[in-house]
């Protein structure tokens, strides 16, 4: 792998940037791999990277039906935070946060991780009680957090309407200074490049159409383009399509796939240097480095695999943003899109063994998977390497829905996470 550095940039400038190495290979798949990962998004690529880096398993393939990072990795609103209420979830997301903090150096790829802080607004007395409880729980878990009043919120976000005249006046907020945003595409590309350098085969445009089974165990996958490929273990990281993959393997998951939409405005001058989320008014907004306002809110209520939703949802989203920021009312929106999110009944993911031996699933991240990308890949790699759940992944078994040990994160999951 060609190492990126300031000096390298200078050196390549001398040859007019015409000799940069390809970022990853485009290999033909082998007949057999130790581990096959289905799904080449952020989580799948991170899994492959940590398998190779931390567990020395380099005979790995990532099979992606489209192109790398083209699903929800390319469609999220790039927010990173770890202020979840329950210990299990908080530990998992904080594990991810710690990896985020060294990720650009680790991957030798600038993922533009910017810890500009995340505000979760409270508009009612109950909101404020919940915020206080959550911040205290966070601090006990070693996660940074503060409870702010309306005046402190106004100081951080001068452009927001924090007056008492608002329809839903801001009473305060939780504030996680270490939260922020990262460049979503760079995360996928960075992991892909680093995994490829360690010997992982990234196979694009290779749709998996079924599993090869023997005696209740998976022994490989069937693909549309390359026939059958054998595997010791298979990890499925297919987000919105996880239910479809589970059906191929002969079992059901407690997931429902919904459209989740987001939109960006035309680029404007710097106006918002943090992330603002409101559960109550129901919207969230940040400003990208390019200058566009990145806006999102809730899912469309119906099932959908079409990567698009209804206009009414966008209207409600924009209403919420204008309620918080009347100053944005004349900003024109530039692009709008949708992704398929696999929502779980308790708003927590599934990182789990399955009824099929040697087949593992990492799914159910629902509306908030991006922030967990490094942690998710890290614990799922350990799970695949050892054949049993990583310590942090244990509470997230799919079988928790049988014994009732759910981890209800609907509060901290918020708008959409």
């Amino acid at each position, binding site marked *: 792998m060609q190492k990126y550095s300031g000096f390298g940039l200078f050196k390549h400038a001398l040859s007019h940037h015409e000799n940069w190495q390809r970022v990853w290979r485009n290999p033909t798949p082998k007949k057999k791999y130790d581990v096959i990962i289905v799904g080449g998004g952020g989580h799948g690529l991170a899994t492959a990277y940590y398998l190779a880096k931390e567990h020395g398993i380099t005979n790995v393939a990532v099979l992606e039906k489209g192109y790398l990072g083209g699903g929800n990795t390319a469609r999220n609103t790039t927010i990173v935070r770890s202020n979840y209420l329950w210990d299990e979830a908080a530990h998992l997301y904080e594990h991810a946060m710690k990896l985020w903090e060294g990720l650009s150096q680790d991957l030798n790829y600038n993922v533009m991780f910017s810890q500009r802080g995340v505000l979760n607004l409270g508009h009612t007395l109950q909101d404020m009680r919940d915020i206080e409880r959550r911040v205290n729980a966070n601090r006990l878990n070693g996660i940074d957090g503060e409870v702010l009043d309306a005046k402190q919120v106004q100081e951080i976000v001068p452009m927001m309407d924090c007056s008492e005249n608002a329809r839903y006046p801001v009473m305060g907020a939780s504030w996680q200074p270490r939260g922020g945003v990262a460049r979503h595409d760079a995360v996928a590309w960075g992991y892909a490049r680093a995994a490829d350098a360690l010997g992982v085969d990234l196979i694009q445009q290779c749709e998996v159409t079924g599993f090869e089974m023997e005696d209740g165990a998976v022994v490989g996958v069937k693909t549309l383009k390359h026939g059958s490929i054998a595997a010791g273990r298979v990890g499925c990281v297919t987000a919105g399509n996880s239910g479809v993959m589970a059906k191929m393997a002969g079992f059901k998951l407690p997931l429902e796939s919904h459209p989740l939409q987001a939109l960006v405005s035309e680029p404007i001058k710097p106006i918002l240097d943090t992330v603002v989320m409101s559960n109550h008014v129901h919207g969230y907004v940040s400003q990208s480095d390019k200058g566009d306002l990145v806006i999102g809110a809730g899912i469309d209520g119906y099932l959908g695999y079409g990567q698009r939703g209804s206009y*009414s949802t966008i209207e409600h989203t924009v209403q919420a943003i204008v309620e918080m920021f009347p100053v944005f009312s004349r900003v024109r929106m530039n692009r709008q899109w949708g992704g398929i999110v696999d929502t779980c009944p308790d708003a927590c993911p599934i990182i789990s063994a399955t009824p099929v031996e040697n087949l593992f699933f990492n799914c159910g991240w629902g509306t908030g998977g991006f922030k967990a990308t490094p942690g998710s890949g890290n614990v799922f790699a350990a799970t695949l390497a050892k054949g049993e759940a990583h310590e942090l992944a244990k509470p997230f078994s799919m079988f928790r829905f*049988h014994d009732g040990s759910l981890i209800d994160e609907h509060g901290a999951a918020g708008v959409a996470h």
Partner: protein
Amino acid sequence: MFDIYCPHCQEYREEEEFHASGEAHIARPLDPDNCTDEEWAEYIYFRKNPRGIHHELWVHAAGCRKFFNITRDTQTYEIKETYKVGEQPTVTE
């Protein structure tokens, strides 16, 4: 944006008046005292979540406030039919 025919009101109304309430035809266990944990989980949490034809429960929340079912393709979003609760769908695949 869906244009939904409410079988109770017998007219097309826009999606904003309706609310999706998940998978239809989920029968409550007949013998609840003797259900295993797996059977309860199946009833409460596990859903078909198909990519394709789906029978789902909707409510005309800002209209007649009655529940009814829709057969819809979750990939193309095409609504195949709407029918009252208690009736069976005519489109199944």
